């Protein structure tokens, strides 16, 4: 009784904060926690039942780990896992370096109006849908009318069949995602640079530190907590590929699958062609499980070295 009373008192005391958390909590409940029950489909051979979705789930036969077999029967599981991981590592490392550099450069610009213009310009690609970005890329890479091949023709070089030659795609994809995401991420860093106590810089200037020394000894160390958090969050999603990037930008070209197929596109294609919900759920579960393990491990590592930097 005392506990319930205490709990109620707590609720009343924090009612404003709880109210603020409510929309987010509901969102997670409806879109993340309730759908989790759907995971059982991964262990069933899903068949329709007259009485709707729940009945279909309940009435379908259990098949154990059968649905996972198709993932591992070819070397596809290896290829999609490798692609997902390597691309995401590249995005995290290059994205971090570029975003921080951009943020520092923007914060050091003397002309604040110009800084805003640059910032907005870099921010804009983030709001474009991947379908549109896919067509941007196509206008460069189309083998008949693409800008690149026309430039090549001008110089008398051989045109390149971009959409059937896998060797260029790791670079193209990394370039495209950096172009799209760096502006957005640098804003986060820029905001925390703005929050750094100005007196630190003043003191440094009095001591005779030049710009480079100020950046190295004040800006970067002050940024390190937010860098850790952002990186941790990104590592948590290292197993989730950006579907739009890997599906729309290479225009679903079969010859490029060896370098563009990631878990998300694989699941999508599997569901699209076979309609086997069980197998797609199985692939999704595999993705979530490995992702979960990665978050826990990376968090544990961070906690070991820097207790305040860890998420939990």
């Amino acid at each position, binding site marked *: 009784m005392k506990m319930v009373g205490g709990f109620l008192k707590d609720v009343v005391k924090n009612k404003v904060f709880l109210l603020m958390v409510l929309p987010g909590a509901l969102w997670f409940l409806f879109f993340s926690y309730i759908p989790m029950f759907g995971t059982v489909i991964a262990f069933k051979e899903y068949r329709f039942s007259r009485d709707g979705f729940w009945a279909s789930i309940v009435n379908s036969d259990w098949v154990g780990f059968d649905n996972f077999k*198709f993932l591992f029967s070819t070397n596809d599981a290896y290829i999609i896992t490798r692609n997902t991981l390597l691309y995401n590592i590249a995005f995290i490392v290059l994205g971090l370096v570029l975003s921080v550099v951009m943020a520092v450069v923007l914060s050091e610009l003397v002309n604040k109006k110009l800084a805003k213009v640059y910032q907005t310009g870099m921010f804009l690609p983030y709001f474009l849908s991947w379908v549109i970005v896919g067509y941007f890329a196509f206008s460069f890479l*189309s083998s008949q009318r693409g800008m690149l091949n026309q430039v090549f023709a001008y110089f008398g070089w051989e045109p390149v069949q971009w959409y059937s030659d896998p060797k260029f795609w790791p670079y193209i994809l990394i370039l495209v995602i950096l172009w799209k995401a760096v502006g957005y991420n640098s804003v986060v860093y820029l905001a925390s640079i703005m929050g750094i106590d100005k007196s630190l810089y003043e003191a440094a200037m009095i001591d005779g530190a030049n710009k480079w020394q100020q950046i190295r000894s004040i800006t970067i160390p002050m940024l390190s907590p937010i860098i850790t958090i952002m990186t941790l969050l990104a590592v948590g999603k290292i197993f989730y590929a950006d579907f739009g990037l890997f599906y729309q930008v290479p225009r679903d070209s079969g010859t490029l699958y060896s370098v563009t197929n990631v878990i998300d596109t694989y699941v999508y294609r599997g569901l699209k062609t076979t309609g086997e919900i069980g197998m797609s759920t199985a692939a*999704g579960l595999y993705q979530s499980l490995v992702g979960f393990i990665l978050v826990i491990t990376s968090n544990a590592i961070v906690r070991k070295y820097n207790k305040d930097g860890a998420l939990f």
Partner: protein
Amino acid sequence: MSRKRKSFSLVLTTLLATTLVVSACGSKADNGTNTAGSGGEGASNEPTAELIWYTIGVPQKDLALVNEEINKYTKEKINATVDIKMIDFGDYTQKMQVMAASGEPMDIMFTASWAFDYVQNARKGAFMEIDELLEKHGQGIKETLDPAFLEGSKVDGHNYGVPANKELPAQEVWRFNDELVKKYNLDIKSVRSMESLEPLLKTIKENEPDVTPLALVKDFMPLMPFDYVIEKLPMAVYLDTKDYKVVNLFETPELKSALDTMRKFYQAGYISPEVATTTSVEDLYKSGKWFTDRASTQPLAENLWSASYGYPVTTTPAGDAYTFNWSVMGSMQAISANSEHPEKAMEFLNLLNTDPVLRNMVDSGIEGTHYEKIGDNKMKNLPDAKNYDMPTFSLGNLLITYLNENDPDNKWELFKEFNESGIDAPLLGFNFDATKVSKEIAAVQNVKEEYWSSLMTGTVDPATYIAKANEKFKAAGLDTVIAEVQSQLDAWRAANNK
């Protein structure tokens, strides 16, 4: 950046879960509007059944208007109304798959061998078995349909859908942009095989740099003498097979020679270099910047094509007319397994396939608004027809639709003749049950996605890629699937004395 990312699978599961909630509320709302729209007249003791009908095609502007007229008519005839919902061609399969899986309320839905796969979904339990319903409420359908349709669309001995009465066999033709044929005085009658097309392509390539000589999309596949067990998977029997041996397409000389030709065409520039990622060449048709392509024909198809492009199109056969499983199942309407009014749904389908008034209303809209009659069974489109332009073949019996202005009077006679001319393909009536090897099929499908388009369009060199693809198909379990097909096929042969 990454905060917004959601895996597709997660979104899907979410969707499934929410549609459950939403659909429960949605059906109630639907009932409300339906009775408001059509209630009142026609006093009957029985409440009017409200059917929900999902069909394929671009959603039409005047659909609601026509739908209301249709409901007035059907309410009087069979005391039922329909709520027609259209889903565009490109989305139909995916959306229906999700909706059927989530138990969305529906009564009638379009299904075919090429969209919302009929056999697969019948086996998964998406459709109601209609043997009895056909007997009880579908006598009209049984009388009008060529018996080959109902026979050929049986799955494991039962019917799950009402096929549209239309052309029965499939025949591939080369279509030509006649303006270019005339301009260069080309002889298209001598064309039949792909090789025989080459001199014509060469002429066009040399003289018309802006024209794509052979207009293809990524789904293209060279014509080869096979009957495929599952469309676009490399297992087939020869069309003239005697022993019904299932072969691996990638180990046949026919595939090699066909792909060598494709590769030659591709390298000569007869095909667009983007073909492996091209999903539509509609722009070429609109601008007339194409010379030839291949398509499935039906009697008088040239007239349809010419009318729709606005310039003459001529054709010449690329192969014989065969009746395949997939051509029999080219267009069907099925009753949903969760339908609340299966009997009314069948009555409606029966009326749709036998009653010219309803059939033409569904197809062409309202007389005086969208079309006018210029004879007993002839009509002319009015300007407003563009607001109600339905895909005729998908909606039921073609042979009771009104003829267009410039159709010959014997159009439907020609259809009947064409239907009789078809040669039965060896696998007609055999439907592979993939449940035992569904894991292998899923893996094989994934391999197919990777190699198919680029190989079949000549984008990659067949000399190396045929072997590569075959190796990966085998790793995915193609041989297991073929063995399973063979054993089912042998059992089917024994049962049917083939």
